């Protein structure tokens, strides 16, 4: 498995300095060449992206699609180290960035890549772009962090949920417990006040995201809009992507011609939401 991953990353690197595809950017991430589809949501904390991907995930499941969901910073292998670094406030921007890349690569090698090869729709709540935005906001070099993730493909769809920082702050501060140290960007020393620090840090992240819209072909969704409207836009784009895509057969469903009735049956049993 390892050999294959690297063979592909070698191609990516060969392309780093290739003349860009007309948009003025070098190609950092190669197009997804696997059988499966890769759909990603991005945006700052409180942008509503997790709500939207959750709705999308359930919608695709209810249609009997094979879907795999992966969340940022969720590798079991890296968990205890992340915990330690956060508890001890031991991270520097570089080690934070490298450890999150380690976390991502573990999920890539063990889950995302095999699922994509199998023909599954992989959905990721945050992807390399989170690192490109957040780590750069913390002060690491743009090209350096792009190289770290150059083994990963460009997703088929990237939804960027854009919200003004004030709305995100309101959502975060009313809905949850106290802002955490790194979440608020306290390590940057922007302000002693967590909320002020969060605001300044998130604004920097928004600036990085905004600058990536063309570079990585983001579908920008207005995160301040009504939830249903956002989901409608998301589903329209996903439908377009999945047109003509057969995916992998679902062993829990009977043969194609009786698929519709089988789906109805599953729905009647409460298998969707």
């Amino acid at each position, binding site marked *: 498995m390892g050999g294959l991953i690297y063979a592909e990353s*070698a191609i990516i690197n060969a392309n780093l300095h290739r003349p860009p595809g007309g948009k003025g950017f070098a190609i950092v991430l190669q197009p997804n060449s696997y059988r499966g589809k890769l759909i990603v949501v991005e945006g700052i904390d409180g942008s509503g992206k997790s709500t939207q991907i959750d709705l999308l995930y359930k919608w695709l499941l209810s249609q009997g699609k094979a879907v795999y969901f992966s969340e940022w910073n969720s590798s079991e*292998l890296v968990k*205890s180290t992340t915990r330690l670094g956060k508890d001890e406030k031991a991270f520097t921007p*570089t080690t934070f960035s490298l450890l999150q890349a380690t976390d991502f690569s*573990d999920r890539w090698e063990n889950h995302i890549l095999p699922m994509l090869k199998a023909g599954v729709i992989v959905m990721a709540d945050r992807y390399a772009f989170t690192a490109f935005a957040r780590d750069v906001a913390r*002060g690491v070099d743009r090209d350096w962090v792009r190289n770290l993730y150059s083994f990963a493909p460009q997703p088929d769809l990237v939804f960027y949920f854009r919200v003004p920082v004030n709305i995100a702050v309101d959502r975060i501060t009313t809905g949850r417990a106290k802002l955490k140290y790194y979440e608020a960007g306290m390590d940057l020393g922007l302000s002693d006040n967590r909320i002020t620090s969060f605001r300044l840090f998130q604004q920097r992240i928004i600036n990085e995201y905004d600058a990536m819209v063309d570079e990585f072909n983001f579908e920008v969704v207005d995160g301040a809009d009504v939830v249903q409207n956002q989901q409608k836009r998301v589903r329209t784009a996903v439908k377009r992507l999945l047109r003509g895509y057969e995916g992998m057969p679902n062993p829990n469903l009977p043969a194609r011609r009786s698929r519709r009735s089988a789906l109805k049956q599953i729905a009647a049993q409460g298998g969707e939401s």
Partner: protein
Amino acid sequence: MTEPVYYGVGFPYRIIQDLPGKLIVLEGNDGVGRSTQIAMLRKWLEDEGYAVSDTGLRRSTLTQAGLENAKNGHTLGSLTMSLFYATDFADRLENQIIPALKAGFIVLSDRYFYSTIARDVVRGADPQWARKVYGFALKPDVTYYLRADVPTLVARMVHGRGFNYWEAGMDIRCADNLYDSFCVYQSRLLQEFDAMTIEYGFETVDACRSAMDIFDDLRARLRKLLARP
């Protein structure tokens, strides 16, 4: 060292002006005798009145336990291992090596990122990708490449700690048994180190000799280096 020089952009968020210490790296294959030499050099340097600090792979307090666990399991992929080691390296560089150099210490480093790159490339990593990961790395004052052929390494292993899974590259199963896999794996690493000699300006030290002879050689080289202003 004084003015820090990096392989890439270093740490853009951290201005480091002056590093009066010296960063001395010992590189080379498993079993070549690096740690023996470092212990002897440390004693000699301290006798001479230098403040010495030593470091080596996997000694970061941040990643030590996690990386150890990962290596004991069976889900650690090559790419993940590579980035985990890079995290270990960055943590030690920022939190141990640079502060020691700032305080004027001689830092003896048992391996540097060259070893990690050699291992990554042997495992199929793209060589340019792996090099760029270490764009934050400081250029050492000198790297001594302790070079021994595979039969010498085998002899050292037999009379030392024996053969082990990782040092034999059994994760990529270079052969169906530890001994053969060790020979194949170490000879591939040797090729990588040899290829890096010019690129990174290693000083090659013949490590097929006795520990005392190697030490005399290293000491003479270091004396010259330390005599420089």
